[in-house]
């Protein structure tokens, strides 16, 4: 055999084998198929299997078609087209999963907002009820105070003469009931009456002025002194009964303000008196002026 020809034949054979090998290497997946596979694996780890299972299933089918095309004719245009389509379908499944997740989150936020609204409404309703209850309680307290005040007024009337004038509510107690003639020490019965007066004063919170008055018999100065001493005696007793000292003042008027004629015994008896003047506070004054 010719050596040259043999060598050429060998080279051709080796080249053929190499070409064959190269041909096998070129049968690897196209880049499109590689990308599609990777995207699918990535999608499987995300929310798509849970939130867009149907779309992901369609993508899987498309990928299988691409794989089949690769098996039949590796590197073909058909494989590339089908892989491209599979890739898009995987991305579609992922997009649908994101939309679903967003819708779920939106629904959840709306539910939370609704719950907050309802809770706020309940709270407001609760607060309103509390305020109403408080108002009712306060009104009841005011009514009770008013009732007590009226009861006290009624009891005052039992103690003596009660009238309203420009100074306020005036309780007139006869001197004979409170003191021995010419003295300024309170009689025992006076203490009982004045105890009730003290209760009324404490409840009302009004400022009180105790005025001592005498008739015109005897010296004016002596009458002035006596009337002051008597007013002081009443004031002392009231403060002992718990009336605040700041709340009550004592004034001796002597014989200067008679309410009856001093020429008769009865008139003089009327003039010998203690007037307890209760000066209402501004709010009470308003209610007195505007009943």
């Amino acid at each position, binding site marked *: 055999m010719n050596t040259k020809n043999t060598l050429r034949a060998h080279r051709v054979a080796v080249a053929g084998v190499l070409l064959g090998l190269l041909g096998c290497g070129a049968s690897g997946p196209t880049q499109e198929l590689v990308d599609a596979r990777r995207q699918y694996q990535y999608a499987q780890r995300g929310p798509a299997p849970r939130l867009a299972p149907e779309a992901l299933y369609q993508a899987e089918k498309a990928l299988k078609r691409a794989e089949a095309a690769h098996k039949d004719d590796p590197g073909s*245009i058909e494989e590339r*087209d089908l892989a491209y*389509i599979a890739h*898009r*379908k995987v991305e*579609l499944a992922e*997009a649908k999963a994101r939309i679903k997740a967003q819708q779920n989150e939106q629904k959840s936020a709306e539910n939370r907002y609704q719950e*907050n609204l309802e809770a706020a409404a309940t709270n407001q309703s609760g607060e309103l009820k509390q305020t109403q209850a408080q108002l009712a309680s306060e009104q009841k307290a005011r009514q009770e105070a008013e009732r007590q005040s009226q009861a006290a007024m009624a009891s005052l009337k039992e103690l003596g003469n009660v009238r309203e004038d420009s100074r306020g509510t005036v309780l007139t107690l006869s001197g004979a009931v409170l003191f021995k003639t010419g003295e300024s020490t309170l009689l025992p019965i006076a203490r009982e009456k004045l105890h009730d007066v003290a209760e009324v004063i404490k409840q009302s919170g009004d400022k009180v002025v105790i005025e001592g008055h005498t008739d015109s018999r005897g010296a004016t100065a002596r009458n002035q002194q006596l009337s002051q001493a008597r007013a002081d005696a009443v004031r002392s007793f009231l403060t002992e009964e718990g009336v605040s000292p700041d709340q009550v003042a004592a004034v001796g008027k002597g014989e200067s303000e008679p309410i009856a004629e001093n020429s008769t015994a009865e008139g003089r008896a009327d003039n010998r008196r203690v007037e307890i003047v209760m000066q209402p506070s501004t709010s009470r004054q308003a209610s007195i002026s505007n009943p």
Partner: protein
Amino acid sequence: MKNFYAAGALGGLLLFTIQCGGSSVPQQKVSDSHASIRAAEEMGAQGGPQAALHLTLAREQVAKAEKLMKDGQDEEASRMLDRADADAELSLSLAREGAERKEASEAQDKIRDLRSRMGS
């Protein structure tokens, strides 16, 4: 002889098809692809970068498919239309995702506004 005439007839038909631009790709398939693109456009696909990209790809692939059909490459044209459909569908979903996200953001703004006015 008979085979010769059959082959000739077939060849003639093929030539006729190519020369007259006829295609075996159903016109419905082409119409469907155009419809998918329109749907994506109406959803506002041009507004988002990713959605717009896939919309452009869909349009280009439909144009390529129509050219392939004119050239008689029906199989390739059919697959090109499938690619266009896949891009159009993805574009539509991406546009929808964008629209939903915007709506959710506006709803959150409203809720925040209401809360601040309620003092909560």
